[in-house]
């Protein structure tokens, strides 16, 4: 009874290969301008780009600077541009990159570059704070929990997954040229509350997003959706907010 018939998976022992990373370096105290530098380290196919950066910092150049914490795609610290696309270094595996070529790594675009792969996140969080990302319920506080049906809960599930990594906002061509644009991440945060059946504050949030730098700035380029490491359908969420505005206001 207790012994089930199972297929024992076959396992191959991986080998390490040399991989070259071309990293865009900028140290404000020494460099006038950012420049590229190549580093070669031995990696296993299952290693993450974050592992490579850790290795480079440990073995080659301790001054290489980047943010990281959780190491498995949950804290949102290590958004960077790997081979021209925004990704989390800890969720990008060596085996998914073409290592016959040099792999480029650079900071995300559109936020002020501070050092190497570190950018100033304050404008990003400022936009987030402005969409009133918190529950604004109505009426008396119930003694027990508020009731919410499973369907109502599912309505905004996708956008609760956001880890505020900024992959989306800094992949958005509109944001690159117009830093005042709230950006997809802030809209995702607003969406999470606008479509929460317990919330009564959508009016105020929609008001903010109806401004010049709000949702109407989005040109549906889908870079945000492609970049989101949590698989959130960002553009879809933005469109839902646009439609909510249209059907409320027109």
């Amino acid at each position, binding site marked *: 009874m207790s012994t*089930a018939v199972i297929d024992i998976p076959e396992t191959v022992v991986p080998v390490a290969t040399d991989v070259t990373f071309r990293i865009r370096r900028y*140290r404000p105290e020494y460099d006038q301008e950012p420049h590229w530098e190549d580093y070669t380290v031995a990696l296993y196919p299952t290693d993450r780009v974050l592992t490579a950066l850790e290795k480079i910092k440990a073995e080659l150049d301790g001054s290489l600077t980047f*943010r990281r914490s959780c190491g498995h795609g*949950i804290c949102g610290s290590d958004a960077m541009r790997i081979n021209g696309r925004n990704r989390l270094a800890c969720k990008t*595996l060596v085996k998914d990159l073409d290592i016959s070529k040099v792999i480029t790594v650079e900071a995300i675009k559109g936020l002020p570059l501070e050092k190497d792969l570190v950018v100033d996140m304050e404008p990003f969080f400022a936009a987030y704070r402005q969409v009133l990302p918190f529950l604004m319920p109505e009426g008396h506080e119930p003694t027990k*929990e508020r009731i919410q049906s*499973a369907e109502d809960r599912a309505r905004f599930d996708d956008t*609760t*997954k956001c880890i505020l990594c900024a992959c989306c906002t800094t992949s958005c061509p509109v944001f690159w040229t117009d830093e005042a644009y709230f950006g997809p991440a802030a809209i995702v945060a607003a969406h999470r509350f606008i479509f929460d059946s317990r919330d009564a504050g959508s009016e105020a949030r929609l008001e903010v997003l109806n401004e010049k730098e709000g949702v109407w700035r989005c040109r549906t380029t889908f870079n945000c959706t492609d970049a989101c490491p949590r698989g959130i359908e960002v553009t879809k969420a933005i469109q839902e907010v646009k439609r909510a505005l249209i059907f409320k206001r027109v």
Partner: protein
Amino acid sequence: MQTHVYDVIIVGAGGAGMRAALESGTRARTAVLTKLYPTRSHTGAAQGGMCAALANVEEDNWEWHTFDTIKGGDYLVDQDAAEIMCKEAIDAVLDLEKMGLPFNRTPEGRIDQRRFGGHTRNHGEAAVRRACYAADRTGHMILQTLYQNCIKEGVEFYNEFYVLDVLLNEESGEPVAAGVVAYELATGEIHIFKAKSIIFATGGFGKVFKTTSNAHTLTGDGMGIIWRKGLPLEDMEFYQFHPTGLAGLGVLLTEGARGEGGILRNATGERFMERVAPTIKDLAPRDMVARAMVQEVREGRGAGPHKDYVYLDLTHLPKEQIEAKLPDITEFARTYLGVDPVTELVPVFPTAHYAMGGIPTDVETRVLRDNEHVVPGLFAAGECACVSVHGANRLGTNSLLDINVFGRRAGIAAAEYANMVDHVELPNDSQGQTITMVEMLRSSNGTERVAPLRKELQETMDMNAQVYRTEVTLKQALNDVHALRERYKNVSIQDKGTRYNTDLLEAIELGFLLDLAEVLVVSALERKESRGGHAREDYPHRDDVNFMRHTMASRKVNAEGEEFVSLEYKPVSMTRYEPMERKY
């Protein structure tokens, strides 16, 4: 150097820190100092759930929850604290719901609950549904919800400020909290924060181990700072190894996976937990499951090319259930191991997970300087604290509960204390020690590098102080740690700049890790029994006669000026529950 003055300073913006901030922010002038942006804190990684006897899906009560917590903690739990936590659990969950946390719902629209390891009905009869959850990202939702409410309340944050020292002053010969010293990552500047109350909520120190579910940044800074002040740390030998880490990586797969019906199997496909815990099988407490897994591997029933892991089997669960309730861990397995849990077995092995020990506090979260006295103005909550509600082994979901219940209590206690007293004068040359430490590291030409030292530390800890320990292995670990501490004196860094110098901070963090590793190992050596997460092969049984007591370790300096770890003990507080043998 800048000086800032607040009523309450909270160090750490994880679940505990922000829950505290929400309380103290409305009562007193509060600032939160955090080395990470708040939403990067490791509370966000917690997956499975947060327990409270809501009885939304089946009969339950907080008294059963208390019993489970105490039994799960192998009777080293302070029972008065456990009672408080389990009683306040219900409001803690409801508060979060009112703040907007999107819990999963029952068909009636109530908060849904699921099973978790060690949580039982009527004192161990059968597993009970007690864990409130939001898919497998409960911690993420808690962290986000708390941060969102901090924005709502206008809590002040100092992001990427590393607290490196706590300032104590003497008042009639007793230490009193006066402030903290922080290093601003962006500029390299030192800041002094003068405060009446200080709450430490800095999280765990899993990075002393190599295989861990913990973040790179969980380096036990808060505990290390307290330690260096000569204040005690409690029960540091009790470290929890979570059974289901992705093999070789340590990335966690929540116990909720077994709560949903997942089964552990060895290389032959046998459900070995049936042998170990016939009643609740795979949902036994973590220490027991982790030991059983290590036994399977040791006895040659491990799977894989090196026979060094076992399997977590979810393949019999409906795909929809896996995708609805365990989406994130499914993705982890797919991303990092290329294994699809819906159709394949997932290789798992215990991973260093949670520090039961930490800064000793009373139930009002006030930090103890010995068995009786508190340090006025100093508070601690969350994983860095030891109340002790987890005793020798924490039950799954009780930590998210702990950070909410005691985080809240800390916020209230700290603010009320601050409203009663005046600022304490800062000690002379407050920033001196920190500046010396930073400058020494920055200017050192030593030959040692941070990364190899850290690696060697983690390797010896994994080898010698993990799930099973003996006198021999622990002595080995202690020797290694001592040698590494010597070499650390000769460490140097490559980045000599002031802005965003993560090289420097990693060196400082390594210093804390080395200190804490030593405390862990020394405490473990002296606990000659097996209890909860501390399993000594040379003393395989629990010894209530000699060791039903908390370890209180503190740093002392002997006549020759050498530092050493001095151990004292504190009685366990018992109310209603007599120690029994732990069987499930």
